[in-house]
């Protein structure tokens, strides 16, 4: 399943929307990337099994001075697993993110 999300929204609004979509659709986020038209991001979801628990989604912005690897190894990411890192629109600006759960 693919859906677009307004890239002008804040990081928390987009994270909340992605989590809402995961819970409502019984799927889990697999990738999130910039779309080819306007400031839209494209979310790709994959199916989950009956009874499968999908842990809370965490999306962290990667500051320009840091690398995704540094964020992944930081205390913020402790105990979480990396889903992907990518660049998306956040509040209309291209922003590097890492997604964990």
């Amino acid at each position, binding site marked *: 399943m*693919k*859906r*677009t*999300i*307004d890239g002008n*929204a804040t990081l928390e*609004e*987009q994270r*909340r*929307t992605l*989590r*809402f*979509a995961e*819970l*409502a*659709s*019984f799927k889990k986020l697999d990738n999130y*990337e*910039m*779309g*080819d*038209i*306007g400031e*839209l991001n*494209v*979310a790709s979801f994959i199916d989950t099994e*009956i*009874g499968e*628990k999908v842990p809370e989604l965490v999306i962290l912005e990667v500051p320009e001075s840091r*690398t*995704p*690897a*540094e964020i*992944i*190894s930081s205390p913020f990411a402790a105990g979480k697993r990396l889903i992907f890192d*990518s*660049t998306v629109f956040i509040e209309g600006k291209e922003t590097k993110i890492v997604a964990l759960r």
Partner: protein
Amino acid sequence: MFKKSSLTVITIVFISLSGCSRVVKVDRPRVPKVLDRDAVNETFSIQYAIDEFEKDYKRYKTLVLNGDDASLGLARILRDVMIDRIRVDVELNYREYEARLFAGRAAFDSVADFLELGLALATTISNGERVKTVLGAVSTAFKGNRLSINKNFFRERTIEAIVSKMQESREKVKARILRNMLEASVKNYSFEAGWTDLVEFFYAGTLQSGLQALTADAGTAAARAKARTEGVEQLRIASLQDLEMIQKIRAEHDKLEAAWATARTNTSPQAVAASNEAITKARQILKRLDPDSREDLPEREVLLRLRSKISESLDDRSKLVELMEAYGIPQTGNQ
């Protein structure tokens, strides 16, 4: 034949160039003795010598073969020490390499700029057509060589971009090594596994690796550009209330699925009773949401139909209230 004045100009340009290269020496602060890999005395060397490594590695193998808890604990300490010592060597060599890359590229660019400017100046002020032609040809050849070096060695990338990629790749491997050292015993992360990671760590800090990572990034960027939005439905931004409601609905629904799924593998009377109770409740909820639904639907089908009903809230948030009611979830004032 070059005229005397042309030769003088060229000579001045080259002399000034060689002077500049000495005056403009931007390298790095002095390396502290304890971080200087060349600072060796009779008793101590910062470098991990081969004979030292051999001794440590034999001791490590013996401890691992002993296999008792105490030996494995010591082996783990030794593993970490060996990995750290190799890491120090790799780190020191990398920093020197990185500094040389910056300095080498800057020096090459500066000399090339001066030469180009010098040749252009000499061509302009020299008399005689033949001298102009010769200098023009030399200038063209020089520009070609510069372009060739840029293309073949640096793939027309800046050193900053390449080094940034090298650092990123190194950080990834380093984080993995440190995590394994922190969390894993020698059974789960042997020295040999760490050794393999160290090889990767070393090669992540090479010019080739940096260029490869940049190329991969360019590929990702190209792929990213293809993420089509045409025909893909847009999700409305979820409010806090939307999220809270779906979380409550899913919590109730997941209980039903968990009870049913447990009874697939656990056939104890309690598990079967809990499953039956969950399915009865699921049928009631489905009936509230879809009065026309059949009452003899297979159990799995009931749960899947409920999933489908919940999924409708993805694009129609008014369904959330209906679902809350059907699942018997009390609504708070702000919902």
